[in-house]
């Protein structure tokens, strides 16, 4: 039956070509648009992961609500307590509670690849008359480069040089511009608790993220000194062996103490909800193309079934059964869908390769982007082929089933009339 189905398709070349083109172009569109959207998404996620590590252990920041202090003052004495004025402010600590116990725990956990204790503080940088307020991160640069890829973004100098101590800084390109600094020049750094302290710029980095590029890194000890918080940290960034375990590990660790433990994806939940919406729009828009193509197959097959009623009658009189007739028309849809899907993903791959060569001015996202980012994730191709193929199959079912239900006697009688 498959060879006869193929003959039917080849006999109606124009119709077949038009129907095939619907599936073929729909598949290419799916591959190209998905590649574009997912490519950009992968870049964003890559940026997120690289700049923020997999799991963050941070000092808890809890704000007081109207009823936060109810139990502390009155336990269960009253059903409802009115405060005038209601409590407000924060009840948190700005620093991680007992970081040493975290270090021990992280050292013994074999899921952890590396971790980097950090002290993040607001700071005012000044170079002569030029000043800029931004944040500074104190870290162990040897561990920091394992946890994030900040080392890869260094344009001048060496990130590891800040480990040498003696007030050395790695600054972002935006901060460099604001202060008019050069490599190995001194800059004054002041925190809210300290007088300005001179630091030497030993590295300049450019991540592509403006906020990150406005900041600076120094050694943990130096920043603790400037901030007057010796041996204290307000964040421990952790990199796991398996990125996909981040949320589970963060949830598990959050039970160990009062500190806030979040995975990178929990921290950026709003971005992921945008991605989900993006996925829905992508599937709806491209799916609608394939649905239209499916309708093309449905119409063509319906026409074919009507045109081939006599063939159905003679095949049935020869002993071909209902399923043979269903298969004859179903195979046509399968052949169209299969060919459209296969050639579509094949050409879609080359379209994606071409799109990658199109120059793209990324503006501030200068972290290495000069061309369109197109994802070549194999899953896109599987999805595109599956959607095209199954839309063709669904479109074929009804006409094929209708053909299978035809009774030869009715067709012969109609032919005789």
């Amino acid at each position, binding site marked *: 039956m498959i060879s*006869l189905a193929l*003959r*039917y398709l*080849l*006999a109606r070349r124009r119709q077949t070509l038009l129907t095939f083109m619907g599936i073929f172009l729909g598949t290419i569109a799916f591959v190209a648009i998905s590649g574009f959207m997912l490519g950009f998404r992968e870049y964003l996620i890559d940026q997120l992961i690289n700049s923020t590590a997999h799991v963050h252990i941070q000092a808890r920041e809890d704000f007081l609500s109207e009823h936060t202090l109810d139990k502390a003052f009155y336990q269960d004495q009253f059903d409802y307590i009115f405060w005038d004025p209601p409590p407000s402010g924060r009840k948190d600590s700005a620093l991680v509670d007992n970081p040493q116990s975290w270090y021990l725990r992280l050292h013994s956990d074999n899921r952890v690849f590396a971790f980097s204790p950090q002290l993040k503080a607001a700071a005012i940088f000044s170079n002569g008359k030029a000043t800029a307020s931004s944040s500074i991160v104190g870290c162990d640069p040897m561990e920091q480069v394992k946890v994030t890829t900040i080392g890869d973004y260094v344009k001048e100098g060496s990130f590891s040089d800040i480990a040498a101590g003696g007030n050395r800084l790695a600054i972002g390109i935006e901060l460099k511009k604001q202060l008019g600094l050069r490599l190995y020049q001194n800059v004054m750094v002041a925190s809210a608790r300290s007088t300005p302290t001179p630091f030497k710029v030993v590295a300049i980095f450019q991540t592509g993220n403006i906020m990150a590029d406005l900041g600076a890194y120094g050694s943990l000890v130096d920043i603790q000194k400037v901030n007057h918080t010796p041996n204290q940290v307000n964040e421990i960034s952790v990199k796991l062996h398996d990125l996909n375990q981040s949320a589970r590990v963060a949830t598990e660790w959050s039970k160990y103490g009062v500190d806030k433990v979040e995975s990178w994806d929990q921290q950026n939940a709003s971005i992921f909800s945008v991605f989900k919406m993006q996925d829905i729009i992508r599937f709806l828009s491209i799916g609608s193309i394939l649905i239209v193509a499916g309708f093309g197959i449905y119409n063509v097959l319906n026409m074919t079934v009507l045109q081939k009623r*006599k*063939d159905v*009658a*003679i*095949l*049935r*009189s*020869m*002993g*071909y*059964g*209902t399923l*043979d007739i269903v298969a004859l028309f179903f195979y046509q849809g399968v052949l169209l869908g299969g060919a459209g899907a296969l050639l579509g993903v094949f050409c879609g791959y080359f379209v994606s390769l071409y799109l990658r060569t199109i120059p793209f001015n990324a503006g501030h996202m200068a972290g290495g982007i000069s061309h369109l980012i197109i994802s070549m994730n194999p899953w896109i191709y599987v999805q595109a082929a599956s959607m095209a193929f199954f839309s063709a199959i669904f479109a074929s079912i009804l006409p094929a089933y209708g053909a299978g239900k035809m009774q*030869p*006697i009715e067709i*012969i*009688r109609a*032919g*005789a009339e």
Partner: protein
Amino acid sequence: MSIIAKNVCKSIGTPSVQILKDLSFEIPDQSFLALTGKSGSGKSTLLYLLSSLDNATSGSIEVDGINLQNLSPQELYRFRNQKMGFIFQSHYLIAELSALENVILPAKKFEKNKNHTERAHFLLEECGLGKLTNRLPRQLSGGEQQRVAIARALMMNPRYLFADEPTGSLDTSNGDIVMNLIKKANKDTGTTVILVTHDPDFAAQARSQINLIDGRIDKGSRKTMSPS
């Protein structure tokens, strides 16, 4: 082996109209029977009932001792494929297949892996189409198309050949060729032929005849057949 019809009735439509009325007869093996009658007398309907393409409203039809209505669909498909051949007024050739491929088509149903080309060639040769085997139906004349249909009907060497006005759309000379091929099949291989025809000349070439008048057998029409 024979076809035995007992009290066969057939009604169609709503409100129902009785086309065949209580027909009983037997068609012996190797017969050449002509079903004749005016338009609307029920001869084609009877042919379709005998060939299992349609079901009787009441009564029974046994072919080779088997009531075909009792067969499962798969058994019926195989029975039809192995034991029955059909020729219609229209050739019903598949336009996308060559003459040879059309002839082979019945054999592809249950014997996909066997090579049937030799027999198909032989049949086409017998039908005088030995040089036209690779032509598509549209490249053949009406008479040639009908001869391909005959070759296709004989492909499985059927025990029964059902022909519904096979000469109806042909000119006299082509009609004669087709009739000769049908007679030859009956004579050479002992195929039982049941032929529906309007043409008294062609009916006269059959060895027996049932003439239908308003769905009943005209008792004066029978030749060698004995009423059951």
